[in-house]
């Protein structure tokens, strides 16, 4: 029996060949695209380097301008403002404390000495009273004052020469 070959092999080979060629072209295109991409990266990178250098130069000029002349005036004045703010809140009105002491002194007592110390925030008063009772009342009256955060009695002595009582009052300022 004779074999009859009905297959169309030649035709299929042609089709496979055209598909293979298309794939090859696609691969070549991809390869070219990769090379183009690399080239773009290099060229664009160089351009960016140039742009960066130009910006750095401009920045340096701006910075130099910012570090001389007017900006120094601005910083100097701002420093003064900041220092002034701190100082303005620090200052203590001594007259105010004297007025408060005037109000708090009771009859029969007078001041011999007034010592203010800013660092300690205290006023030490040396008072002269007619007797111990008045000295005690005076200390109590200072304790009642809302102007001072604290008031305490100190050394108390009887002065024979004058027949009066000398006593100290320690006042702490708020």
């Amino acid at each position, binding site marked *: 029996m004779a074999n009859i070959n009905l297959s169309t092999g030649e035709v299929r080979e042609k089709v496979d060949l055209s598909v293979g060629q298309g794939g090859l072209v696609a691969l*070549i295109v991809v390869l070219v695209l990769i090379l183009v991409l690399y080239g773009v990266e290099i060229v664009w990178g160089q351009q960016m380097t140039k742009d960066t250098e130009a910006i750095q130069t401009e920045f340096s000029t701006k910075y130099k301008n910012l570090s001389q002349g007017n900006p120094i005036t601005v910083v100097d004045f701002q420093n003064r*403002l900041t220092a002034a703010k701190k100082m303005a809140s620090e200052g203590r009105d001594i007259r105010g404390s004297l007025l408060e002491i005037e109000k708090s002194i009771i009859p029969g007592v007078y001041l*011999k000495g007034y010592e203010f110390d800013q660092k300690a925030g205290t006023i030490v008063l040396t008072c002269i009273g007619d007797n111990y009772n008045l000295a005690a009342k005076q200390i109590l009256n200072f304790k009642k004052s809302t102007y001072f955060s604290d008031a305490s009695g100190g050394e108390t002595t009887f002065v024979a020469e004058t027949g009066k009582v000398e006593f100290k009052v320690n006042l702490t300022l708020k």
Partner: protein
Amino acid sequence: MKVKILLPPLIIVSCIALMVWLVYPAYTNGVDGWKEKRDKLTSEKNNLDDAQKKAENVSRMVAQLGSNKVDQDTIATYIPDELKEEEIIDNLNFIASNEGLSVVKLSVKPETVVQQEVPTDMSGNPVVDVSGGNPSATEDVTVKAKNYNVEFSVVGNYEKIKNVLDKVYKLKRYNSFKTLEIAANETPGADGKKAAPTDSLKADMILSFDVLKKFSQTVSMNNPIFSQTSFDMKVAQEIRDKKSVDVLKMSIDQAGRTNPFIP
């Protein structure tokens, strides 16, 4: 035919090799790849924009100073850039004399350098160097205000002393009382014994006057002041409200003597 079979895998391998050894390292290599260059460019653009904004802020603030001489003078008088001890002596003497008090002592001497709180870069951000724009060191704009002690003693009655204390406090130049001692002005009587108590008191005080030297260092762009568009001048008004005693300005009428040792 064999070449045709080998070519596709060869191209695929080449593509992979190019991607791995050329394209990707050119894109990013941690140093000077395309991505790093782009990031650097963006960062430099931001720096430049920031510098431009700060330059504009500086111009605005300088214009504000120029148009607001009153506030500027208030601050300059309140915290001057030099001691002007002659002014301190003249003003304290004037205040005391005006009240009819005798000035027993009036001396000015420097104490210690004190640190004043001023705007500083507390975040520790690196400062951009003037020459190269490279981060170098942290900014140190701490300004040193020099403190001067003025020993001032006056003799007079209580009311007058009180007025002097008030006027010194209200002097338009900043000063603060460090210590104050008021006691009877005890002068021995003719017989050498203590005289009877009088209204005459002696007030010994140590006043503190501060001087803030003119800022002359190189200014860093990281200084927070440049991010502001204007000065906050509220404190100037606050000072004017509290301080009402003008600081006298001195002038010399005449000078020159042939023999300076003759009284």
